[in-house]
């Protein structure tokens, strides 16, 4: 999932939104806030 492992990650905004939509609902039971999404993308972009 990390950008370090797959450079294509988070490069397609529609795809990113789709999966946030699905996974936030399934995992946290509600939609994620923009700040939560930003934190997640930032973490996944930096983690090695």
């Amino acid at each position: 999932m990390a950008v370090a492992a797959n450079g294509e990650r988070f490069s397609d905004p529609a795809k990113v939104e789709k999966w946030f939509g699905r996974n936030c609902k399934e995992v946290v039971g509600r939609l994620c806030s923009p700040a939560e999404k930003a934190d997640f993308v930032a973490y996944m972009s930096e983690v090695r």
Partner: protein
Amino acid sequence: MKPLLLLALLSLSLPALADRLPLPASTPASYKTECGSCHLAYPPALLGAADWRRILSGLKDHFGSDAEPSPAQKQEIATFLERNAGNTGKLGNAGEPPRISNTARFVRKHDEIPKRFWRDPRVKSAANCEACHTHAADGRYSEHDIAIPELRE
């Protein structure tokens, strides 16, 4: 002699054909991404058109997941499934919600599989074709392509 030879060849090729279920060349990209990212993009011929319609109308709660695609993609997928759906008369009733693994065809094709194989953690569920059919993604479901030696013994 010739008709006999043809008949022999035909009888050899028929079972093989039945085990080949590649996605149609016309399969839209949306079907592969929307219906193939969580599970195998199932061959459309494994459910009848009415059952596919029921699946599509319930994607908001698709076996516990929200799998609703965009309206444009959904329309494209619906058209594709409608055109390539299987014959319900031959497949048998898929139940409610429709499941490929509930159809008589699926049950018949798998009737020699012991229950403990289905429960194996590497298999997890009858929806997980690729656990045993290692070439399912290429549409190859032949018995010769089943490769879980541990399950076989």
